């Protein structure tokens, strides 16, 4: 057996044949995959670079899904807030309208029961006791009545030593009904008249129960003729009984229904299990290492979360005081809704910018991975020179110029 001996010439030919076969294989492979570099053996540097670019583009693609879901969640919450804002506005309009239906709750003031009397002006002549005051220390008023659930109340306000003004008296009434806060409301209205109001809409009675010193009448409190009438006429006790104002009562019902709808809306505002209006938070991750992310904190925006409750209408909107309190609450819940809408809006802008940016990044990575080829530096250089000329009058150049003008850079021009 003798070995086959190859001359060096033949050996060279064989080797080059083998090489061409390999090259052919590779070319075929490239044609079928559309890529210049497929394995690490083709061109290690380009191969690993290309793989890295592809991997990153896949990673970013996965992040994009998350950002997209996040944006949807924000949109859902935003829509719900808009609907809730409309509901709150409706409730507010209802409350305002019911204010226009005259209140029929028990109210004693110079404007009503003692309407024919000339009102005492507690702004121009403020004293009950003291200079120009008609009462004395020790005079005591008893205020009593029932609320619209027929629960009775009664309390006394005794006048102290001089000087003591009508406004102080009103404040004392408001403060001296222990456990009845909000039941009776006394105020000096814009015309300087004292008005005592049964907020809860039942009966109201004001009596001068202790009359120390000079004899007085209720006229001396709510309005009077000069000279004062005799002690016996009119009586020292004024009584007013209320009737239910059905217009106001129906607005109160509507208010409660709107609250229920707001709560339902808040509970239904979830997207993909995340409800930003019912206390869940949302994390949106913007890069693979999760070093940049947007955390959107959720809020609880059912009617209670907005500070609204059915107890706002416990007395069926019979008194202006109750309605005004409800309107104030509605205004502040509108403020919360608007503030939250703008927070979500800002978050959405950030997320959308990130989404656009990530999308574009994925595109550039794909260009990088797919076109990767043995760079023809001459060609690329020529391309860049051509681009340089082309860009001089481009939209982008104009846009950069206008953006620079708005920034600190204008100081450099």
């Amino acid at each position: 057996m003798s070995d086959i001996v190859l001359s060096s010439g033949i050996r060279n030919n064989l080797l080059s044949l083998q090489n061409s076969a390999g090259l052919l294989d590779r070319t075929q492979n490239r044609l079928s995959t559309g890529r210049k570099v497929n394995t690490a053996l083709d061109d290690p540097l380009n191969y690993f670079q290309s793989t890295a670019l592809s991997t990153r583009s896949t990673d970013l693609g996965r992040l994009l899904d998350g950002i997209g879901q996040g944006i949807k969640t924000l949109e859902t919450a935003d829509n719900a807030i808009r609907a809730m804002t409309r509901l709150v506005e409706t409730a507010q309009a209802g409350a305002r309208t019911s204010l226009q239906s005259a209140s029929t709750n028990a109210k004693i003031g110079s404007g009503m029961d003692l309407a024919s009397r000339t009102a005492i002006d507690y702004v121009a002549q403020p004293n009950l006791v003291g200079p120009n005051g008609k009462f004395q220390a020790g005079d005591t008023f008893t205020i009593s009545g029932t609320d619209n659930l027929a629960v009775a109340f009664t309390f006394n306000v005794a006048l102290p030593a001089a000087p003591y003004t009508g406004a102080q008296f009103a404040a004392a009434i408001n403060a001296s009904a222990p456990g009845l806060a909000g039941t009776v409301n006394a105020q000096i209205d814009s015309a300087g008249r004292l008005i005592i109001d049964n907020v809860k809409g039942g009966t109201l009675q004001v009596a001068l129960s202790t009359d120390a010193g000079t004899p007085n009448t209720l006229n001396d409190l709510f309005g009077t003729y000069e000279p004062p009438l005799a002690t016996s006429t009119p009586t020292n006790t004024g009584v007013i009984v209320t009737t239910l104002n059905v217009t106001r009562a129906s607005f109160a019902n509507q208010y409660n229904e709107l609250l229920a709808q707001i709560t339902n809306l808040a509970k239904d505002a979830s997207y993909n299990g995340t409800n930003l209006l019912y206390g869940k938070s949302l994390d949106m991750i913007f890069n693979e290492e999760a070093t940049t992310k947007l955390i959107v904190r959720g809020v609880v925006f059912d009617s209670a979360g907005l500070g609204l409750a059915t107890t706002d209408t416990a007395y069926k909107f019979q008194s202006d005081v109750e309605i005004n309190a409800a309107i104030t609450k509605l205004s502040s819940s509108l403020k919360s809704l608007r503030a939250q809408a703008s927070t979500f809006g800002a978050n959405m802008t950030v997320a959308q910018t990130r989404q656009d940016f990530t999308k574009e990044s994925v595109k550039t990575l794909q260009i990088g991975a797919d076109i990767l080829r043995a760079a023809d530096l001459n060609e690329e250089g020529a391309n860049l020179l051509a681009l340089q000329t082309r860009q001089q009058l481009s939209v982008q150049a104009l846009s950069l110029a206008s953006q620079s003008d708005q920034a600190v850079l204008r100081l450099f021009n």
Partner: protein
Amino acid sequence: MALKVELKPNERIIVGTVVIRADDQRTRLFIEGEAPILREKDILTVTTADSPAKRIYLAVQLMYLAQDITPHHQVYFDLVRQFLEAAPSAASIVNEINNRILSADLYKALKASKRLIAYEAELMAHVQSG
């Protein structure tokens, strides 16, 4: 810890939204707090950004100074796409710039953009010399 910056006579520097200019002598500044800081030699303007890579740098610089990518990312990507179509071999540098921007590290993005300018100069030199 304060950042120490030394300015040449009449040199300017951007700190936040203001430009500070040195008097006609060397000046040393100590800057504390968070604000975008850019020395005159690192600043490109519309007039000096006269090549594709420099325009990309300018776009990143605008993002850095505003600390906000929102108003600028559209024009940035237009420029980047044009650049990659002309010179695909720059993909890895562009990728790094993108990554830095995504990671909210705009200063490093600016540094990477500077490398893109150098790379562009290299490519253009091929044509001009050959």
